[in-house]
């Protein structure tokens, strides 16, 4: 820093950058509200003139590692990108491999996948709401959302046996059948969550302080959202009726799905879309449970090969995979598949050369697409609006860095 001498004090100029009188502020990588990343913020007074998101702090070479692993092992690798949304992140990959293998999951498996995806989506949205709350120093929203998320983590563990990294959808079906008592537990969870959503509205969404922080902040007009390639609730909040679930993968085609669409495109609207999507997801799970078809939960092509010694598990609704499952060979070819995660659309591009491992697996995660919004939305706002914008776009660094 340049310095000037003042009587008794040591004066400093706070900085010039490129001829502009700006302060360069490093928010992160060690900062209470940066996440696993760094935001280089350029300030003119209190007004943000530019934000450079510096990503890559949690890059874990998921794409490259995928080339060295058998197909089934990649499922538990890719779900590490977003363990809080594990089913949504793995499902499009599983469907891509299924298409190369030429296997169809039975209808019951498609419904079970949908159920877990929606339970995950609720948990993911609650996580985002909690983080959004603490970004505005609203610690009650933070704790409530994380506490209520446990309900849905519990539902997922009932269904799959594990809280976060379920590895539930596998090629040809799912790992477990619907357990007894899940319907009752879900009924309780739904009633509880709907009551809680009304309380969220009271303490957070309709709180005058929170409204003041979010209303009119980080406005993303419809055409801009499309041009920037924003995705997920951020895109829908700007009034674009687009959701990858509309393509009808898993059981969404049968269940008649309608996305939640906002209008204004400001931070408040993005939070609103998430809150209403929680309600919509609960509806979808309820409908899926009601219309859940009978039948096997795994394609007979693989259950046939289950050794007789562990066959009794299959009757109890649990799959013990046959040994050859790890050496599956796909036909050579390229597949593109996509799905809607809690934070937006995830795309997998899988290239196979006919071996037991992919030749190339390209992954585009929703957070990787939403990272452009930092600069686009924050310009012209004050420094205090940056956490509000960060919280409202629900950005998740490990997901973006892969």
């Amino acid at each position: 820093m340049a310095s000037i001498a003042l009587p008794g004090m040591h004066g400093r100029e706070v900085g010039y950058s490129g001829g502009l009188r700006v302060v360069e502020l490093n928010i992160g990588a060690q900062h209470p509200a940066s996440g696993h990343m760094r935001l280089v913020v350029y300030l003119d007074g209190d007004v943000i003139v530019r934000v450079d998101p510096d990503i890559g702090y949690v890059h874990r070479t998921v794409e490259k590692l995928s080339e060295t692993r058998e197909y089934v092992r990649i499922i538990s690798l890719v779900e590490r990108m977003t363990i809080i949304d594990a089913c949504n992140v793995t499902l499009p990959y599983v469907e891509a491999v299924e298409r190369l293998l030429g296997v169809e999951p039975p209808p019951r498996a498609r419904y079970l996948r949908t159920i877990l995806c929606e339970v995950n989506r609720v948990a993911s949205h609650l996580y985002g709401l909690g983080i959004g709350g603490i970004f505005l120093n609203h610690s009650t929203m933070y704790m409530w959302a994380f506490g209520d998320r446990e309900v849905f983590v519990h539902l997922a563990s009932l269904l799959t046996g594990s809280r976060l990294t379920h590895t539930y959808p596998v090629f040809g079906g799912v790992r477990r059948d619907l357990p007894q008592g899940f319907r009752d537990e879900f009924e309780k969870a739904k009633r509880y969550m709907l009551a809680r959503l009304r309380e969220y509205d009271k303490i957070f969404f309709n709180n005058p302080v929170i409204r003041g922080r979010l209303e009119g902040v980080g406005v993303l007009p419809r055409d801009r959202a499309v041009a920037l390639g924003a995705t997920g609730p951020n895109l829908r909040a700007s009034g674009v009726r687009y959701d990858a679930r509309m393509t009808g993968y898993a059981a969404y085609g049968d269940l008649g799905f309608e996305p939640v669409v906002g209008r204004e495109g400001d931070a408040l609207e993005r939070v609103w879309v998430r809150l209403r999507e929680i309600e919509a997801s609960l509806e979808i799970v309820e409908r899926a449970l009601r219309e859940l078809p009978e039948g096997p939960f795994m394609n007979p092509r693989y259950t046939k090969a289950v050794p007789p010694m562990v066959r009794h598990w299959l009757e109890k609704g649990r799959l013990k995979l046959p040994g050859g499952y790890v050496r599956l060979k796909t036909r050579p070819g390229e597949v593109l598949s996509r799905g809607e995660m809690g934070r937006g659309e995830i795309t997998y591009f899988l290239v196979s050369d006919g071996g037991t491992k992919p030749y190339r697996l390209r992954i585009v995660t929703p957070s990787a697409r939403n990272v452009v919004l930092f600069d686009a939305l924050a310009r012209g706002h004050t420094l205090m609006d940056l956490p509000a914008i960060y919280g409202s776009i629900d950005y998740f660094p490990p997901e973006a860095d892969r």
Partner: protein
Amino acid sequence: MAVDPLAWLSSATGVPYWALRAVAAPLLYPGLATFMAVALFIIWAERKITARVQMRVGPLYVSRRLGGALQLLADGVRIAFQEIIIPEGAEKWSFVLSPILAFTVVSLAFTVVPGGPGVYGFRSSLSLLVTYAIITLTPILVITMGWASNNKFSFIGAGREALVSITGEATLLASLLAAAMMYGSMDFVAIVGEQAASRVPGIAANPVAALLFFIAALLVTDRVPFDLVLGEQEIVQGPYTEYTGLLFALTMALDYAKLYVLMLVFTHLFLGGWAPFASPLLGSAAVFAKTVGLMLLAVFLRSVYGRMRLDQVASMFWSRLFPLALVAFVISALIHPIYTP
């Protein structure tokens, strides 16, 4: 007739009574020793209340039988043994001295604010104004902290402190003056006496001034929803970012000490001070209980609100609350006769 320990000490040692009183008030009650106990309780209560609202347990494992009440003591021990790091680029003397000086300045207020009937260091016809002057000295030292730290977050925090203190203190002073005008006095003892004589507490006579005082006190002491100077999500810990160890503890205690002083003042101005008691012991207990109750209300807001934006706070105070202070003056002028017949 209760025994006055100070009078006994004075006759035993020959030290004049007024000198003993001037030392005992800032050091024992309502001063530092009491403040330590209050801070211990209030921070514990703050964490327990928020935990209750947020479906958590709060502090528990340190002194389990007391519900974790000694957690802050454990934290204090940890902080006391922590190394005090002075950043290389910092201006050493102002960095080290300003938190000490700031806390000392706030402690001076305990000499003039009474803790009960007859329990005070000095009685002055201007004690209200003196208290206000002492409280408004601290922002200068906080700004010095932010400047001396040589850290951009601290510097921005210092800028916020400047804006916030000017904004909050204007409303605070206006509500104080409205109250002083209502009682026709700036002496705490006289003010409490007026309320006792007329049997009307100030909050009933002039609720607008009381409300403004409370809100402005929240802003001046960095309580949620006005904790702009701390602003963890933007500027880490504001002017206090670079502080460690005991110096950090002092910066933390600073806001709680200011809150304690201002809530004592609120008790005297609007809640009738030591009413309904007149004896030093019971009167002091009444003042203490009212002050702690007010502080509990102030810390409870943390579990309801988030943080307001800087420009919204400034515009709320200047365009809405400050004009409201003029209404408080009008009410004071109208209600004035009930206090000075």
